[in-house]
């Protein structure tokens, strides 16, 4: 009889949720040989909201257990592994029966994430067993030319997954057209968007797919050196990449005359980023690899002509590279069969925020935002009212609930004023203040502005000051107009994408939530009850039991009241800390 397989998801999220302890315990049981089963590791399965995840594969099929702790693990070991009885109520995914979480996987198509959660990322054998390195081998065995490969990628309609959406095949063509003694191919893994972690998951879960994608790219543009520019904040991704590169070198997949082609030399190095959001911009990233401050420079010349060390250079994002081997294997038509008219294939989204099923999802382009939020995501936490999704991070914008039918493809999302970005999708509910969100993103871009262009450097600072005063109740009627004017000036006069898109969060929130701005400015109220200086705390006398708890906890002694006497908050002394609100057990404190 075949042994039962037990697989533990050990991605960064899983480890943070305690998967390491679960693995250690399983390892101890495994090594003691009390129970016979094979123990394996994998990376992110995508179901972050149920981490830690443990998959048990027995002769009847696969059962994925969610939120596994030590107690649950004991039960699983006893009932499922010893007595072969799956514990239905803990299973989150199986083909045997419906679970409460089945909807999370419905409609997902895994191309970039095809191996994530299935293979041990530290094993090249497991990658090869799932068509790994087959694409590059078929290119060399069938004696395809770089032009053939570029044509396949062009025909597939793949567009840059880093956010810009520039056709990948076209980019490769430009880099191929520029002849030089040395060319470079760079993988942009400087995933700096707050709220996005798909690149990290690919690097941690399937590093070889990125290496293979880069090797195919190097073949197509005739580059001999590759760089992966990875955030230093992703230590696990860097570790697994290093292991993967070493394995590929040992197999002869990287190095001199690889895959039996004379003169096909290609090797990959890792460059750890030092923490600067602007380095996601191509020319700034190149400056950073060269050891300089990560400041963008004027284009043209584009990197395809003069990039790293002034040599022709091609830069693609992690997810883009992960798609490449699949496209070469299955053909351009198979990829283009997914998606909308002008955006082909699939896109990975990091679904986070006020959502029940947060995690990593990969869907065909062209599904609607509502589908993602309500079908895959399972709706809003605590069934509150859906307000907006934020797409594209600090460069993107908020798409309101009434545009939930918008399909996700580059052009439709751009039409709303947001951008697709790298795929961070943060869901917001009625308790999220849109002015505060705009302030949050602007504060981020202000800090991250490299300081080269005046409008980006000073303009973002001025816009932030205006937003700060609005959220403090000191806004002026003219502020909305001033914000818009400044926003367009920053967009027009910045050199790189950071400045050109920095005002987007403000512009889209003004466009769709102007009433919230006006409520802050004119009525001095925050409709989402989020901006503390605009709140008023009062005690509802009918609900107050005079327990004196709030009086005790008030740091500014602003509450009057004796036993058996309803309490009262003196507004002049109230510092609006909310301590009384969180302490009151009788919901007698009203916030407005």
């Amino acid at each position, binding site marked *: 009889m075949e042994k039962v397989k037990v697989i533990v998801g050990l991605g960064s999220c899983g480890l943070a949720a305690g998967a390491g302890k679960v693995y250690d315990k399983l390892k101890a049981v495994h090594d003691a040989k009390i129970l016979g089963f094979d123990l394996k590791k994998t990376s992110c399965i995508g179901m972050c909201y149920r981490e830690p995840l443990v998959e048990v594969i027995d002769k009847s099929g696969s059962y994925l257990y969610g939120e596994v702790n030590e107690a649950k693990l004991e039960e699983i070991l006893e009932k499922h592994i010893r007595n072969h009885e799956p514990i239905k109520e803990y299973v989150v995914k199986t083909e045997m029966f419906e679970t409460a979480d089945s909807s999370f996987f419905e409609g997902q198509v895994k191309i970039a994430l095809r191996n994530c959660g299935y293979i041990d990322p530290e094993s090249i054998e497991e990658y090869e067993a799932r068509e790994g390195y087959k694409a590059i081998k078929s290119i060399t065995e069938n004696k395809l030319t770089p032009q053939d490969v570029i044509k396949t990628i062009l025909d597939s309609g793949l567009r840059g997954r880093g956010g810009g959406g520039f056709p990948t095949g076209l980019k490769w063509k430009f880099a191929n057209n520029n002849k030089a003694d040395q060319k470079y191919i760079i993988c942009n893994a400087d995933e700096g968007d707050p709220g996005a972690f798909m690149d990290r998951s690919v690097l941690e879960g399937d590093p070889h797919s990125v290496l293979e994608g880069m090797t195919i790219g190097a073949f197509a543009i005739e580059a001999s050196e590759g760089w992966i520019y990875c955030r230093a904040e992703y230590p696990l991704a860097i570790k697994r990449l290093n292991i993967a590169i070493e394995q590929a070198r040992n197999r002869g997949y990287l190095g001199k005359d690889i895959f039996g082609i004379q003169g096909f030399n290609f090797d990959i190095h890792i460059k750890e980023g030092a923490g600067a959001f602007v380095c996601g911009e191509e020319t700034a990233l190149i400056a950073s690899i060269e050891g300089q401050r990560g400041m963008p420079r004027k284009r043209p010349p584009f990197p395809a002509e003069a990039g790293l060390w002034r040599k022709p250079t091609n830069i693609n994002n992690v997810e883009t590279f992960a798609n490449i081997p699949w496209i070469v294997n299955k053909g351009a038509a198979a990829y283009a069969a997914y998606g909308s008219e002008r955006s082909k294939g699939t896109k990975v989204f990091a679904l986070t925020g006020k959502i029940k099923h947060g995690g990593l999802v990969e869907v065909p382009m062209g599904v609607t935002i509502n589908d993602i939020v309500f079908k895959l995501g399972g709706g809003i936490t605590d069934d509150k009212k859906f307000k907006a999704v934020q797409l594209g991070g600090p460069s993107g914008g908020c798409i309101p609930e009434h545009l939930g039918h918008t399909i996700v493809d580059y052009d439709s999302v751009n039409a709303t004023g947001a951008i697709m970005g790298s795929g961070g999708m943060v869901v917001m509910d009625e308790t999220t203040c849109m002015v505060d969100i705009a302030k949050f993103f602007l504060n981020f871009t202000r800090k991250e*502005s490299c300081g080269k262009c005046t409008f980006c450097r000073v303009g973002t600072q001025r816009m932030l000051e205006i937003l700060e005063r609005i959220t403090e109740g000191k806004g002026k009627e003219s502020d909305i107009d001033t914000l818009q004017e400044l926003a367009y000036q920053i967009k027009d006069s910045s050199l790189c994408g950071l400045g050109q898109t920095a005002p987007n969060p403000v512009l889209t929130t003004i466009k769709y939530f102007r009433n919230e701005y006006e409520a802050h400015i004119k009525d001095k109220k925050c409709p989402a009850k989020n901006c503390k200086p605009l709140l008023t705390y009062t005690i509802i006398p009918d609900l107050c039991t005079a327990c004196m708890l709030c009086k005790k906890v008030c740091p500014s002694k602003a509450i009057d009241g004796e036993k058996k006497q309803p309490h009262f908050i003196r507004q002049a002394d109230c510092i609006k800390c909310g301590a009384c609100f969180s302490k009151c057990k009788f919901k007698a404190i009203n916030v407005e």
Partner: protein
Amino acid sequence: MRITRIKKEKVVEESATVDLSLMDPIIEKYKFYKGNMIPLLQHTQELYGFIPRGAFLKLEKETNLTLSDMYGVASFYAQFRLKPVGKHIIKVCHGTACHVQNANVITEAIQEELGVKDGETTADGLFTLESVACLGCCSLAPVMMIGDETFGKLTEKSTREVIRNMREKEKGTPCKN
């Protein structure tokens, strides 16, 4: 803007405990390497936890790098520190997902517990509090990272507990700084 980080500060003499000869192997390795500045600074920081003034001077003497370029780079990137840090660095995530799940409350709670502001180190040299942009564990928001360990789904209460427990553990173990 990134260059606002440059502030005039009094030069504090570094204690003699910084052993600059530890840098010799990395200087040897990267001396003639194209684009060597960032790796040199990164490895220096790995050795000392920050980049001591003496290290800059040593690098200037022994490599082709200039002081102004190095200071420019070191002050540009968030990773580099020019001051010593505490034994434990507490990184509180302020990414979008954590922000909408009230990451501010977590930072405020730690500030109260430790009595330091964001970016500061406690007087006993045990803890440094930092805000970071995104740790990439958005589904577990709000999140903080202490050393290599990540703590997710934090509340004000659980945060205080984590800090107090670490404090408790540190009692009796003498601090190196």
